[in-house]
């Protein structure tokens, strides 16, 4: 979806078009999920919070004023507030690594997601160069978040075979990333700071 399409969907969603809102949701749900998951480290909680973000977006949409910033930036600002609320309900304050220490105006919040999009694209490209079997195990285990035994059941293999396959897949992926000069260290550091 390019910016022109997005503006069109937003305009129609604000007029009450459910399909337009659904299109915006499908376009951004995974990005919001990852944003939340990265901060709460719990898939089930991340799914709940993601749902909450879109419910609130739906309610607040009539007053959303399109700016130069993408719609996703607005969703991020809602998601950040929900993550902070999650930590408040847990009775603890989020560490600065969990959420940004201060709410950032939407317009200023663009660089990080854009840079992350590039990293994601590079990583996907590296995964796509693995064997189909290795891609499968990487996807089930680390993208969908299944446990080892669940992956084994899904692929009709035993757990030991999956352990070995998983190891080979990760080793091959690490080597590919290194060959393509993917800066693994600083990317990980950036994700945790």
């Amino acid at each position, binding site marked *: 979806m390019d910016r022109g399409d997005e503006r069109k969907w937003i305009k129609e969603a604000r007029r009450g078009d459910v399909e337009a809102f659904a299109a915006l949701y499908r376009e951004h749900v*995974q990005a919001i999920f*990852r944003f939340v998951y990265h901060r709460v480290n719990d898939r089930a909680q991340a799914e709940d919070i993601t749902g909450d973000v879109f419910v609130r977006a739906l309610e607040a949409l009539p007053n959303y004023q399109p700016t130069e910033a993408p719609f996703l930036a607005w969703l991020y600002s809602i998601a950040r507030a929900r993550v902070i609320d999650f930590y408040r309900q847990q009775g603890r304050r989020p560490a600065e690594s969990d959420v940004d220490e201060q709410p950032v105006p939407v317009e200023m919040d663009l660089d990080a997601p854009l840079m992350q999009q590039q990293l994601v694209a590079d990583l996907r490209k590296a995964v796509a160069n693995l064997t189909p079997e290795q891609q499968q195990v990487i996807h089930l285990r*680390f993208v969908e978040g299944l446990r080892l035994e669940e992956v084994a059941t899904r692929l009709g293999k035993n757990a030991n075979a999956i352990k070995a396959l998983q190891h080979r897949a990760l080793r091959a992926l690490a080597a590919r990333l290194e060959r393509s000069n993917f800066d693994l260290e600083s990317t990980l550091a950036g994700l945790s700071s």
Partner: protein
Amino acid sequence: MTVPPTDPHPGDVLEKHLPALLAGRRTLEETLRQSPEAAAVQAELKTALLVNRLLAEMPDTAVRDLEQRLRARAARRGGAGRVLPAARRLPQISRWAAVLLIALFVGLGAGGGTVAASAGSLPGDPLYGIKRAWEQVVALVATLLGRAEDMALHLARVRFAEWLALNTAGSTPAPATTDLILALENAIRQADSTTTPQLVTFMLAAENALQSLPPAAQQQPGYDRVAQLLQPDFDAQGGLIVPLPRLLPTPAPALPAATATLPPTIAPTGTLPPTGTPTATLPPTPTLPPPTATSRIPATATRTPAAPTASPTATLPTATLPPPTATWTPLPLGVITSATPVTLPTLGPVLPSVTPVLPPLEVTLRIRETQAAVYATQTAIAAGTGEPTPTPDTAP
């Protein structure tokens, strides 16, 4: 002959450490420090972490389920982004004309003399009373024009700005928090199809602003209630609702102070039918989240002694009662029992002094509030749920 120990398979080492790493229970550094054998699979662990963080996805089923829920929610409201509960239109004057008039009236205040000077004042400033008085005038105009909800939204914004400014300056008097809570509750109750989206947007922005407050401000009494009210809560029809206050974890310490003020309260309400025992259930009132509750209940306790006795209760205007559930819900059952015997002996002697003079309306309302609290508490005790139920329509 002994078999030399073999190194564990790297696949096993990897799997041994992956779950804790992926769930965030242990960092990579901790893993390497505590388990030296993990160094052999360090690159694989890092890669796994990277893929998990950058490519993690919500499962398709969850994505579809959520989409269905959002569609259903949007449909209930008549479409995405729309809030449909019937829009109220004045027959004589359009909404925009009304809003314009209100804005003009607010502007008049900002443009003239002392009122203008008071516009930026904060609670505690000498001119703040003038600011509030002018607000009352504008609120009256708004009500006459049928746009009380716009004014309620405006006042919620103003109270929040004041509260935030005080907090930022390092001090927040409790009355400012109380005023903010009341303004937010009022704005939520009054919100209609037009003001709901504006209010929700304001709430989201305000809730974001809360995060910038210093930790000390977040510990103040009433902060939790403010934060709770700023999270939009909706009913099945998509209308905004005021969330019930959360129970305080330790209500007991508040009891003694409240018990001391009870006897005078009970005297004038002596004619309430089942009052003997239940009127003594008032002590838990201070356990309501400050400052919302304390602003009302103590006032009842100190002022009711001046009221004549309650024999003419049949004239009490039941229709004007405030909804009791929001105010009295948090009463904990355990506290009630201990306070029961306090005031019973004073009931008898007071009854003969009943005078046939009707109490002024304000006093009558306060008596009625007391009755409502008593009834709600009784009902809660009887039901064993701790949840008060609304007062019956028939006044005793």
